[in-house]
């Protein structure tokens, strides 16, 4: 144990940053961006999140922050309704709340830092997959848990999009992989066998993308079955280059963390107010605000061509 640099909260802005889960590359990358923003702002950053799948853990952490007197909370919600209860309490205690990555109920936060709308993500995933398989055929989805709120929202967006735009596509199954790569691989192997006409696998959780890719590769169906998903470039580089995974969709995760902190700080010092239409996000430039959503921009599709340029 060693004493730290600064003392307690000597007038410094304290921002608490809540990931959906710790020990997840995605949120570790978010944290990196958040730290950069906090350093820029001279604010103190607190970071903690659940290490298991207990849905009450996020509430506990937020309540803890409320009682220790932070100024801003930036949260990614695992359970939408559940965490909203705690975030409302935070607002009652005068804490500014923004959400990022996965939204809370609108009355539980001031702004949602939106890396892409649920619809945006669903559309991007399905559009990509549809384009790859010629807008016709069977596809399946790999998700983390059947209970994960925003994954369910994305799946719903995909289903809606399919119904509206791709009548010849057919969603044959949705399988949970418990955020385990190996389980995703096993599930995909089974899906490939059970649905011989499967054309594409869409993974809406990041460990699921390499897992599905490995299964497709082992089945010798590289290229014949397309793999598309939400994931990090670093985890998929090899498969994308081999042509197993066709495209990985993601936003710049580090920027998401950065933006969440910036928005939270702006909310605290009053420079960001409800009703704003534009937000100056420092190194990210001016970003559009739609209603109470601050938009990071459209999601980015990593492909064979560009994936080497990213290091997260």
């Amino acid at each position: 144990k060693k004493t730290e640099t600064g003392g307690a909260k000597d007038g410094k802005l304290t921002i608490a940053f809540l990931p959906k889960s710790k020990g997840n590359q995605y949120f570790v990358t978010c944290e990196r961006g958040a730290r950069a923003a906090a350093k820029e702002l001279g604010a103190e950053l607190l970071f903690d999140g659940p290490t298991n799948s207990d849905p009450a853990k996020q509430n506990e952490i937020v309540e803890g922050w409320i009682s220790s007197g932070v100024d801003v909370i930036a949260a990614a919600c695992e359970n939408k309704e559940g965490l909203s209860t705690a975030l409302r309490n935070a607002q009652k205690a005068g804490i500014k709340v923004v959400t990022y990555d996965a939204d809370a109920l609108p009355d539980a936060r001031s702004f949602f830092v939106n890396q892409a709308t649920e619809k945006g993500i669903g559309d991007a995933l399905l559009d990509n997959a549809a384009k790859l398989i010629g807008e016709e055929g069977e596809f399946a989805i790999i998700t983390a848990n059947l209970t994960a709120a925003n994954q369910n929202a994305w799946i719903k967006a995909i289903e809606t999009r399919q119904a509206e735009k791709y009548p010849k596509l057919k969603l044959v199954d949705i399988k949970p992989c418990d955020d385990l790569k190996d389980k995703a691989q096993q599930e995909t192997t089974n899906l490939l066998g059970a649905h011989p006409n499967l054309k594409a696998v869409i993974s809406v959780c990041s460990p699921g993308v390499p897992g599905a890719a490995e299964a497709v590769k082992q089945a010798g169906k590289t290229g014949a079955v397309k793999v598309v998903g939400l994931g990090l470039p670093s985890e998929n580089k090899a498969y994308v280059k081999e042509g197993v995974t066709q495209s990985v969709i993601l936003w710049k995760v580090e920027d998401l963390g950065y933006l969440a902190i910036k928005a939270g700080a702006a909310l605290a010092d009053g420079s960001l107010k409800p009703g704003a239409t534009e937000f100056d996000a420092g190194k990210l430039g001016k970003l559009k605000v739609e209603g109470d959503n601050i938009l990071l921009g459209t999601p980015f599709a990593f492909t064979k061509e560009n994936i080497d340029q990213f290091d997260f």
Partner: protein
Amino acid sequence: MMRKYSREIIVAIALILLMLALAAYAPAYFDPQPLLSRFTSQAPALVAAIGITLVIIIRQIDISIGAQFSMCAVVAGVAAAAGMPLPVAVLAAVLTGAVMGAFNGLLVAWLGLPSIVVTLATMVTWNEALRLWQQGRLMNLPAGIQWFGLSQSAGQGIVIGLSVVLLIAFAWGMRNLALGRYVYATGTDAEAARLAGINPRWMTFGVFVLTGALAGLAAVLNMVQSPQVQPNAGDGLELKVIAAAVVGGVAITGGRGNLWGVLLGLLLLVNVNPALTYFHQPPYWERAIQGLVILLAVVADGLQRGKKVKHA
């Protein structure tokens, strides 16, 4: 004979019925490639199940086996990623497992602490330590690790072959070696074993060390199946293998059970999920069915035991 192996027979019948149903309604289940991939991906669980079986026969339990598996996977991954040759990585994993097993064994055998609590504590400890260390990074391995640098089919052959050889060796040894007899004797009555000149402490310690080492080996067999290591790869493994042992007829009260039953139990349990997929059933029944299989197995055990007492 019939009575002695009645459990194995019941489980085998259940398994055969499941297979018949699959053959009738989803013959694609038996396509060689997915079958091979499925077996390969469950081979590590089989190796871990050997260890847990020994532990249960000696009247202990090890719920830290999943955490040990994760830790060994990461150690092997770190070693491999650092450019060490594969044998070194294997050795590192097995040694790490053995050391963790020795820690459990020390506490259980020499301090006489209850293994369920000791391994509960070490499970949490290893898992959290791993999280602090790796923060969930999915580790990319250098080329030449997957499938031992051989072709996919050769690699799968080695993985399956190795685990089957281990199973046969241990099954034979438990039945025919004096040492195997000592394990059963210690599990039946440690004090009587001591008076018979067996050192129950060393036996218990040895079994824990062996289980750790097997967990390490299992982690390696898992690692070589993909070019990446996930630091929580062993999540849930303990439940899977304990359930397999129980369904396979290993008495939780020690001293009874054999590895062939465990093989059948494991096959039955790990086929529930693929069967649901092949029957095109929703996945959310999986856990309930697994629970039911476990309960039916114990109830069968109880009824059979009741009968035995009456006949005696």
